[in-house]
């Protein structure tokens, strides 16, 4: 009995000791021991959303790659190791050797290893080498849609962040929300089953489905590039859209860049000229003024104008582009021969107040609100700053500035029944919830009947053009050329132009509208000889692709 009591007392003392120690750790020295050395907190990086074209072909999605790092102090036979690694990663023996011979405890060798390369390096079983898994955005079509997509770079904290284009605009949706997991693990890293297991769920980024068709994008880019080389132009842009909804089917500007290797390019190339560069539209603006005059009933389609010579406005003389005058001409003929003098007449009939009001209505000084990062508004001076000559030049697209996206958006309103639409490139966002984007009408700018008249005028403008283009037989196509001189130092330089063409088909129910612009083409300054042929090259391919029947 005495021995049993002794054991019990000893046992109680032991328990008391344990209780006292626990009390000491958890209550008295709680601050000191508040950190749980077994509790591991991990940030769960969300998967970045992918970007797909309208047919679900991937344009940008995550790929797993690896950072190969070394701990130089642990590596023996550095020369042999250098050769072995070089055979797999092809970085250059000198580069690898310099990194392995570094005095640092840890150094990155390459951060672009794919899974296969990682496996091969692992098989070498070299002590002192290690890997870190990384995620980067992969572009299977490389630079096909560079300006449209933008690129993913690093922010100040070293996290992936989208810049420019869609990836800049939809950064929050694509990036998602990181989650946090807290687990108790033993010294070997195995989870402790009865330990703490806290999970704060994150949310992966949302996938974006675009209105863009990669095949159309390819057709457009191929032809734009061919024209850029043929005409030795400084740069070029082409946009294809559905004029009824203003969903963008293709948008490309050249020169562009490879979004995967963006650090190799200068910063100015990242800006998308289609939304970030202003230009004076020139003659392709004329149909908008013509439609405004028809809509306000300032003129009738059957009216005529006596084109006898240059027009004098506010002390300036305005001539036709070829300084030839045809006498009595119809309203349609004014567009056909792109008569500046005729347009000044139209402007005078419309009246200054109405002219300014229509320019504002067509959104000249406003952004289109397209879902791409970096859009800027056009330039429309306040009316108080306008001189008489400004009203005259505005009728043929000078003295005001727009972006290419504004140009095509405003022009689309002429042919879709008068609806100014908001252009958009993302049709659907897929994630926890799916969001379907719908076309948005910003304003009705002209009546439906005006739209019918201007479409017919634009069809005749193409049919009776002085330059004969490679037009597809059986199709009725409407369009207008533009050749705008570039203002340098307060004067227009006649040798430097912005050549453009905007057109659509079928005329009865337009399905596609295409804008082609070249800046400073060298072979010919005229839109009719540069942008227009490229427009028809693109159109010919698209008619087949979309199987649009002749009218």
């Amino acid at each position: 009995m005495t021995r049993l009591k002794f054991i019990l007392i000893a046992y109680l003392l032991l328990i008391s000791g344990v209780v006292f120690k626990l009390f000491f750790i958890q209550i008295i020295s709680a601050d000191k021991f508040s950190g749980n050395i077994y509790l591991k907190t991990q940030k769960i990086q969300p998967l970045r959303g992918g970007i797909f074209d309208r047919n679900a072909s991937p344009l940008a999605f995550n790929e797993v790659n690896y950072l190969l790092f070394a701990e130089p102090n642990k590596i023996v036979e550095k020369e042999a190791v250098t050769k072995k690694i070089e055979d797999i990663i092809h970085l250059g023996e000198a580069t690898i050797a310099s990194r392995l011979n570094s005095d640092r405890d840890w150094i990155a060798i390459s951060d672009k290893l794919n899974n296969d390369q990682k496996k091969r390096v692992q098989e070498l079983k070299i002590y002192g080498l290690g890997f870190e898994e990384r995620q980067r955005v992969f572009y299977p079509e490389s630079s096909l849609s560079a300006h449209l997509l933008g690129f993913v770079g690093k922010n100040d904290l070293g996290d992936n962040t989208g810049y420019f284009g869609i990836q800049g605009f939809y950064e929050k949706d694509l990036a998602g929300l990181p989650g946090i997991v807290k687990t108790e693990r033993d010294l070997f890293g195995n989870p402790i089953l009865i330990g703490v297991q806290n999970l704060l769920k994150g949310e992966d980024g949302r996938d974006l489905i675009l209105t863009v068709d990669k095949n159309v994008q390819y057709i457009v880019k191929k032809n734009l590039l061919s024209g850029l080389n043929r005409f030795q132009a400084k740069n070029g842009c082409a946009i294809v859209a559905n004029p009824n909804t203003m969903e963008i089917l293709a948008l490309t500007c050249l020169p562009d860049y490879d979004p995967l290797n963006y650090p190799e390019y200068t910063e100015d190339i990242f800006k998308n000229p289609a939304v970030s560069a202003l230009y004076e539209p020139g003659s392709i603006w004329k149909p908008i003024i013509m439609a405004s005059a028809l809509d306000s009933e300032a003129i009738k389609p059957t009216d005529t104008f006596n084109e006898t010579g240059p027009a004098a406005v506010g002390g300036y003389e305005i001539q036709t582009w070829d300084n030839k005058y045809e006498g009595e001409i119809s309203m349609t003929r004014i567009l056909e021969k792109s008569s500046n003098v005729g347009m000044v007449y139209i402007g005078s009939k419309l009246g200054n107040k109405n002219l300014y009001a229509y320019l504002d209505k067509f959104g000249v000084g406003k952004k289109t609100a397209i879902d791409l990062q970096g859009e800027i508004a056009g330039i429309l001076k306040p009316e108080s700053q306008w001189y008489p000559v400004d009203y005259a030049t505005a009728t043929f697209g000078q003295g005001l500035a727009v972006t290419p996206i504004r140009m095509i958006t405003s022009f689309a309103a002429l042919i879709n029944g008068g609806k100014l639409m908001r252009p958009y490139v993302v049709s659907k966002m897929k994630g926890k919830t799916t969001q379907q984007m719908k076309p948005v009408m910003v304003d009705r700018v002209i009546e439906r009947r005006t739209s019918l008249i201007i479409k017919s005028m634009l069809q005749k403008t193409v049919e009776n053009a002085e330059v004969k283009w490679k037009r597809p037989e059986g199709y009725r196509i409407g369009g207008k050329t533009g050749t705008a001189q570039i203002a340098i130092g307060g004067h227009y330089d006649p040798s430097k132009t912005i050549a453009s063409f905007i057109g659509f088909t079928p005329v009865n129910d337009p399905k596609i509208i295409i804008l082609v612009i070249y800046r400073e083409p060298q072979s010919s300054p005229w839109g009719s000889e540069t942008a227009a042929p490229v427009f028809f090259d693109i159109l010919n391919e698209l008619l087949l692709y979309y199987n649009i029947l002749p009218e």
Partner: protein
Amino acid sequence: MNIDFKKILSGFMAILLIVNMFLYTRTMVLSDQMMKLEKDTNKLRVENSVLQQKLANNNSIENLNKLAQKYGFTKIDKPEYLDQLHFAFKVNHD
């Protein structure tokens, strides 16, 4: 009735030891399985990513162009369009 505290305590300690050993072994096994599952999931995720990339590369326009050339599907300079097909058209070269 004499209560043999010694035997009860010994029995209790033995049961405690067995239960403890069982729980410890079970925990170790489950923990190991969890670790293995984590590794497998990660491996599958990487494999999935690699396959997705291969699929995208195979379907890329650049690759399809290469294949078209390889199998002689290159475009000819002057295609002849068929009049009787109402969706085909003739190019006006004038």
